[in-house]
């Protein structure tokens, strides 16, 4: 009885605040309306850079009179934590959700529709960013940041191998790796076998779809020749590396391997440079970046736009304040700060200038704009990436010599099972 009541009021509250948001934005609540209140915002560990946080907190306080409490969450067990938290009477008001996870939470009825707010503040956001914040045609979250992988290379090693021009096509890149292999004692590339988001980018590049509709249900499309083609490209990349075929880029942290100065390049996010410098300060001057080259010079390699959205919990008691927070946190100025401070890809055209001077962001921008994509944007997808991610197993199997077709057939039952369970 009690629970039914809570659920009913939560739904009612959701409806009411959806109806109310038009008015509250304009006049409704003034600067004093929120005085003394506190907004809880969950961010993932490593997501919110310090200057951005300080800037947003201050601005939010000035604007609303309320304070914001950023609660940094660890990745371990985050799904259990977030799911249960969203079921509580006083959930966090605003939560960061990975862009590939958003659809699932939206479908579970956990998030507030933010369509009006999007119109107000995000009219010029690029579609590839915004798509991953939507579900069933509704705006259940707002894109916060996203980035894509670039080639982070060791200038010293490349110079030693005598490479003058940075590669602009995939063939040139492989040739460069080959040169490094022959002319230096460095490992040309460190690429473990399970860098799944890099692989996802390659499938975007070959135009593959990881899932397809069959009889009204989503099923795996991993056996598609286009996926096999992407895997073949991955295999060529991986042939230049001694990295373990069954690990991902975080075990060990690939930037720390790079920091030792014996690795020609890694496929990395811009922020990983900081990790390398932390492990070995001397490496700083040797780090360079360039866009992942594609088949032809005009079109960079397909990349996965990995990032996070901000969403407002359906059960939040501070939904108006939460929206005020989002207006501040996702303002042009603060978005520019995210690009500048971390090197995230620019969300809209006029943010491109913020990337100037950040070599990683500059290298990332062309691919983000021209060939960025995500994982399948269906609510069922999140389950597929749950540990143990069957696609990672597929990758390892192919790298260990299985044919792409056999490897795909081996994991497809598991993928289909996960896609069916929602």
């Amino acid at each position, binding site marked *: 009885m009690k629970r039914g009541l809570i659920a009913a009021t939560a739904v009612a509250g959701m409806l009411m605040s959806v109806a109310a948001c038009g008015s509250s934005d304009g006049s409704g609540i003034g600067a004093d309306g929120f005085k003394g209140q506190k907004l809880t915002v969950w961010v993932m560990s490593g997501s919110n850079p310090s200057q951005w946080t300080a800037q947003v907190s201050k601005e939010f306080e000035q604007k609303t009179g309320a304070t914001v409490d950023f609660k940094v969450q*660890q990745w*371990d*067990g985050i799904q*259990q934590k977030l799911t*249960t938290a969203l079921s509580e009477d006083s959930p966090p008001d605003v939560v960061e959700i990975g862009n590939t996870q958003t659809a699932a939470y939206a479908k579970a009825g956990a998030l507030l529709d933010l369509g009006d707010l999007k119109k107000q503040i995000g009219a010029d956001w690029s579609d590839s960013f915004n798509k991953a914040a939507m579900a069933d045609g509704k705006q259940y979250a707002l894109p916060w940041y996203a980035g894509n992988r670039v080639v982070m290379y060791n200038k010293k090693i490349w110079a030693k191998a005598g490479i003058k021009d940075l590669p602009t096509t995939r063939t040139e890149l492989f040739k460069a790796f080959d040169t490094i292999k022959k002319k230096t004692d460095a490992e040309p590339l460190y690429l473990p076998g399970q860098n799944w988001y890099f692989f996802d980018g390659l499938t975007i590049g070959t135009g593959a779809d990881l899932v397809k509709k069959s009889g009204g249900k989503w099923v795996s499309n991993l056996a598609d020749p286009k996926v096999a083609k992407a895997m073949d490209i991955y295999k060529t990349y991986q042939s230049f590396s001694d990295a373990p075929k069954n690990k991902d880029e975080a075990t060990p942290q690939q930037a*720390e*391997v790079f920091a030792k100065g014996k690795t020609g390049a890694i496929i990395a996010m811009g922020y990983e440079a900081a990790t390398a410098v932390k*492990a*070995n300060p001397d490496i700083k001057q040797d780090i360079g970046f360039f866009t992942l080259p594609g088949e032809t010079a005009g079109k960079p390699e397909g990349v996965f736009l990995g990032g996070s959205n901000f969403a407002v919990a359906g059960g939040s008691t501070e939904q108006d304040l939460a929206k005020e927070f989002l207006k501040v946190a996702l303002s042009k100025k603060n978005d520019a700060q995210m690009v500048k401070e971390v090197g995230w890809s620019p969300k809209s055209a006029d943010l491109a200038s913020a990337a100037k001077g950040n070599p990683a962001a500059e290298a990332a921008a062309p691919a983000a704009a021209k060939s960025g994509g995500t994982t399948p944007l269906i609510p069922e997808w999140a389950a597929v990436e749950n540990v143990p991610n069957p696609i990672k197993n597929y990758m390892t199997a192919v790298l260990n010599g299985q044919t792409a077709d056999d490897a795909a057939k081996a994991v497809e039952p598991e993928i289909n099972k996960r896609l069916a369970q929602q």
Partner: protein
Amino acid sequence: MKRSLAGRIWPNATAVALALGFVFPVYWMFNTAFKPTGDILSDVPVWFPLHGTFAHFATAVGAPDFWTLAGNSVLVTALAVGLSLLIALCAAFALTRMRFTGRKTTLLVFMVAQMAPWEVMVISIYMIVRDADMLNSLVPLTAFYMLMVLPFTLLTLRGYVAAVPKELEESAMVDGCSRRQAFTKVVFPLLAPGLMATSLFGFITAWNEFPLVLVLNKEPAKGTLPLWLSQFQSQFGDDWGATMAAASIFAVPILVLFLFLQRKAVGGLTSGAVKG
């Protein structure tokens, strides 16, 4: 009886090899914790932390709320173990020294309770605690930890209680002690080593618990050390140095406790044995 030279050497050689094997992982944890990152990710293992550094320990201890979490862990563990010892002792006494209807059933209940799959029951526990509005509190945490260790504690203490000769208790009572006095003055001191030994299991279980605290206490200041330990592994991948430093800090209290209590425990046992 004289043994041959070979007969004297092989047990000792085996013992040395075994000792090294058992200690190695523990040693490697400390060794890694003290090595600079460059020496950790090294193609040739660095066997001794010659360029010792406390940097990883600084990282580990410098994580937010470390001291609060450490305090919570100590408090919850100590309370859970203490309470379960107390409750289990009463029950063990009844189960070993008294005859009553339902005794066997009770025993069966605790033996089966030992099999409870706590990891999977997390969600039902969560729903109960959530609906009771007790999230982010150390009280439910203590209570459930207490129960996680209760069946083992109880069944084990039964053995210790049984090993204390009834005659001692009886003669004390003949001397005019009440049953309670006989217990506190005669039986309890004899049980002390057993209690300590039994508590070790409880300490290690409660100290390690992770899945439950993860969902029950989301307030950063209400967590326990396993949450803190897990962050070094997952934050942007693995920072082995900090992970091992954190693991060392996490392990040291239990290692010390074990080394200290184990002596008492074995002592208690052998003295118990004499009585047989």
